[in-house]
């Protein structure tokens, strides 16, 4: 039975204590015993019985001597016998041996009586012979009487003494018994101790055996390890060097052991660092956590080749002796493999990016001619065509629209991927949006025998602050999907509010989606199975775009479905309730004020033609140029209210052209608006930086055109009026107190930003971040020129800021803000 340490500890104290107690008892009892035995051997007792009986004998002799006097016995004999007897009595009286006799209730008085009567005889004995002679008869009588007393004293005295002896014997016996027990226990304890020792010895032997075995195993492990194992002492000398280390470093064990590690395996340029670093390193390694760490270092081969190693190091301390045990591995191949992997990954990513770029470029390269086609179709419509021709034209328009939608989807996705969300946050009528949406899709629903139900649970809070276009886009997407996958069913659009959070859901009674597919329907280019593909038309980007939009708004989107029963798509976004914009005028879309002088710069002939026709139709004075170079020439000789310029043109592109115009001060105070199919954010910022006032993404709607013309060609009053509309929306949405506070803060923040802007240098990161934030605010306030200038500032990471433009924009914005605050 191996004793474990715990039990041994637990046993040691009591066993030791008992042993000590036993030994103390044995010593104590032994001493007591010795004392008692000593008492026996020193015969404290003398021979009490003999002494007592001698008393009687001596009394008899005295009596005999006295009795002999009448027959001629000598008096001197009487005196001698008296003295002898008297001295015996004296011993009884004096000696402590007879204390018991003296104190005994029987013998005590007897002794005292005898002593008293002897004392009465002393004067006679010591007196002259004649008197002694005369007293003989009296003495005879006395002694005869006393003989009984002496006899009684003897008998009782012996009894007393026997009793005393008995007591002492008992005490001795008790001690002997105790000593016996102590010895029994002591022997027991010794046997137990011997047993424990035997067990400990056996255990120690076993441990030694185990230790030897584990040492052998360890030895085998170290020598067969594929990793090099090095043991280095605190002085930096190698103490252990296994077989793998021989293979890795090229030294034999005999060569390596005892040599300084630094000299042997550390490349020269790292040696000093290592020398000073070893203690620091060992300290670091000793800390919990860091000891686990693997370190990559350079190591030196015997041949002088430097190669990378990965190592872990741990201090091992035994008996105050510290060695550092280090496991090393040659990672040359590993590093190569990693490098290869990294390259492969980079290549793959680059390929992916190139593909995405191709897709984007292809898409907007397609969009420009497509625009042309669609525009031409519209123009063709007005040219008095036959009924059949109109039917074909409609088919063309439908196909064209569909194609445009696809292209737009792809572009939207890449736009979202680049992280741009042109947020247009304003107060809008949420209820009207949802019901309008249902309304607009009724016709298309009816074509497939579907019904649309709208369930609006917004209470009285019909208005909300947010981006209605994005909400509409997502909702339309979901509704479109529901319509696509449902025949002769019902589609229910619901909207409900929970505080600031608005939940939208679109439920259909269509084919439904397998639960496995639910996971991935939001991924890109997903069109599920063949049956779906047959029923559906689209790029499969709709849900992916919806998810991106919802996430960009900080919301969530999800779907539930039961195959064969229908699906439910939902999304939640934060749309705080707001007061309606009562004063908002609902102007009919018009192409702004008439009679503006507008220059169109566009290389694509059809697009150019379309734009010219559209603008002329609305009474503007339109000039056109087919390229950058031509535009610069025209601008030099003529004055315009507005220039609309395409960006990507062969030869001199839009950016170059604008730079020349601005540099040459050819069109001072004439805003130039960019027309581009490049929708990515970086493009937009690049364009604004070049000196454009605004970027319109192609295809440009008539409404966008009208807004641009109004914004950039109106009188300053018209400008103020227009921007004040945005501020009014803020007042309506937030209430006048909060709106005023908001405007004041905006003013303050802008001025602080302006103070940090230097015309000579490019803005730092913090400033650009602040510009981004204020650009957002300017957008909400409808301060478009200021927003553009701030956006340009945000984008100007290594170019100087156009301070003049910024100040001009602020001047205009300030007029509007001040006016709003005065109301």
């Amino acid at each position, binding site marked *: 039975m191996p004793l474990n340490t715990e039990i041994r500890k637990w046993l040691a104290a009591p066993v030791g204590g008992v042993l000590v107690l036993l030994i103390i008892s044995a010593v104590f009892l032994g001493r007591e015993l010795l004392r008692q035995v*000593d008492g026996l*051997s*020193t*015969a*404290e*007792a*003398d*021979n009490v019985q003999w002494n007592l009986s*001698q008393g009687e*004998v*001596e009394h008899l*002799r005295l009596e005999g001597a006295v009795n002999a006097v009448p027959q001629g016995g000598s008096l001197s004999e009487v005196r*001698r016998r*008296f*003295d*002898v007897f*008297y*001295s015996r009595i*004296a*011993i009884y009286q*004096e*000696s*402590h*041996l007879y204390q018991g006799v003296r104190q005994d209730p029987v013998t005590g008085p007897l002794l005292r009586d005898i002593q008293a009567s002897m004392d009465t005889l002393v004067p006679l004995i010591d007196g002259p012979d004649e008197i002694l002679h005369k007293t003989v008869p009296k003495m005879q009588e006395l002694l005869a009487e006393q003989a009984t007393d002496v006899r009684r004293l003897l008998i009782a005295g012996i009894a007393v003494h026997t009793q005393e002896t008995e007591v002492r014997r008992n005490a001795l016996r008790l001690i002997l018994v105790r000593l016996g027990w102590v010895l029994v226990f002591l022997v027991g304890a010794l046997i137990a101790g011997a047993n424990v020792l035997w067990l400990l010895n056996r255990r120690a032997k076993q441990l030694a055996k185990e230790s030897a075995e584990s040492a052998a195993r360890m030895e085998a492990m170290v020598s067969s390890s594929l990793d090099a194992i090095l043991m280095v002492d605190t002085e930096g000398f190698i103490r252990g060097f296994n077989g793998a280390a021989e293979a890795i470093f090229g030294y034999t064990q005999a060569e390596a052991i005892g040599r300084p590690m630094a000299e042997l395996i550390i490349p020269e340029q790292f040696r000093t660092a290592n020398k000073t670093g070893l203690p620091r390193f060992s300290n670091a390694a000793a800390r919990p956590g860091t000891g686990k760490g693997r370190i990559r270092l350079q190591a030196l081969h015997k041949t002088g080749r430097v190669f990378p190693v990965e190592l872990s190091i741990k201090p091992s301390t035994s008996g105050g002796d510290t060695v550092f045990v280090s496991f090393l591995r040659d990672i040359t191949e590993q590093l190569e493999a990693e490098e290869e992997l990294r390259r492969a990954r980079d290549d793959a990513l680059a390929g992916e990016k190139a593909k995405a770029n191709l897709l984007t470029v292809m898409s907007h390269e397609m969009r420009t001619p497509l625009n042309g086609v669609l525009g031409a179709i519209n123009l063709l419509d007005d040219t008095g065509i036959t009924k059949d021709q109109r039917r074909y034209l409609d088919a063309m328009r439908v196909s064209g629209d569909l194609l445009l939608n696809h292209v737009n989807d792809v572009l939207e996705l890449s736009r979202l991927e680049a992280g741009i969300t042109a947020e247009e946050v304003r107060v809008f009528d949420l209820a009207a949006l949802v019901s309008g949406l249902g309304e607009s899709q009724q016709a298309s629903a009816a074509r497939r025998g579907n019904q649309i139900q709208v369930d609006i649970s917004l209470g009285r809070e019909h208005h909300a602050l947010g981006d209605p276009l994005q909400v509409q886009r997502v909702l339309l997407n979901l509704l479109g999907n529901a319509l696509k996958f449902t025949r002769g069913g019902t589609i229910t659009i619901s909207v409900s509010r929970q505080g600031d959070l608005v939940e939208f859901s679109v439920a259909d009674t269509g084919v439904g989606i397998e639960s496995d597919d639910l996971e991935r329907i939001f991924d890109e280019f997903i069109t599920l199975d063949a049956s779906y593909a047959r029923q559906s038309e689209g790029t499969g980007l709709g849900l992916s775009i919806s998810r991106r939009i919802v996430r960009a708004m900080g919301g969530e989107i999800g779907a539930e479905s039961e195959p064969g029963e229908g699906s439910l798509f939902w999304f939640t976004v934060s749309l705080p309730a707001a007061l309606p914009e009562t004063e908002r005028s609902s102007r009919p879309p018009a192409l702004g004020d008439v009679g503006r002088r507008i220059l169109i710069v566009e290389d694509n002939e059809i697009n150019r033609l379309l734009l010219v026709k559209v603008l002329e139709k609305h009474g503007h004075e339109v000039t056109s140029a087919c390229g950058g170079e031509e535009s610069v020439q025209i601008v030099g000789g003529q004055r315009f209210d507005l220039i609309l310029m395409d960006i990507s043109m062969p030869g001199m592109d839009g950016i170059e052209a604008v730079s020349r115009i601005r540099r040459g001060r050819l069109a001072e105070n004439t805003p130039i608006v960019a027309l581009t199919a490049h929708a990515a954010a970086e493009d937009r910022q690049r364009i604004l930086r070049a000196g454009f006032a605004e970027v319109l993404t192609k295809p440009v709607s008539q409404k966008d055109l009208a807004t641009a013309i109004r914004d950039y060609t109106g009188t300053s009053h018209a400008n103020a009026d227009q921007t004040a509309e945005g501020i009014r929306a803020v007042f309506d949405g937030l209430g006048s107190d909060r709106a005023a506070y908001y405007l004041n803060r905006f003013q303050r923040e802008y001025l602080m930003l302006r103070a940090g802007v230097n015309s000579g240098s490019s803005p730092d990161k913090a400033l650009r971040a602040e510009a981004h934030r204020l650009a957002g605010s300017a957008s909400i306030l409808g301060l478009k020129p200021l927003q553009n200038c701030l956006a340009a500032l945000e984008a100007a990471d290594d170019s100087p800021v156009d301070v003049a433009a910024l100040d001009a924009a602020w001047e205009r914005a300030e007029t509007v803000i001040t006016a709003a605050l005065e109301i």
Partner: protein
Amino acid sequence: MTLWKIRLVAFGLALVSAVAAIGGTIVLSVDGPDGHKYFDMGMLQEMPSVTIETETIWTDGEQVFTGVSLQELARHLGIENGAFEAVATNAYSVEIPMTDAVEGGALIAYERNGLAMTVRDKGPLWIVYPYDHNPRYRSEETYSRSIWQLEKLIVKP
């Protein structure tokens, strides 16, 4: 007859010569190989004396004994081996080996606490041992040898 007479005369002469040297009462007679020797108190007191302080089991408290050591007496008598048989007034007798006649051994005391001892007081001679100084003497054997009212010593070979 003549021989008997001569013997008697010789005995008488010897007795006379032995006793003639004694001025006082004989307190100790010694029967030795060379005949009888007698000692009165004066003779004993003239010999080199020894004083010991010890308790005894027969007395109460510390006692001071003065007397002639048995060793001194043996030397005086020219005895080196054998033993003494000591005889007391009450006819008690005990054998004392010569091993007790050593330095710090048995003492023939004639004074106790500075006073001569009477027969009534276990005198006039009392063989005592320095019981307190030597535990060997606190034995029954030694106590039996501590003979009081000593009258006679018989030298045994």
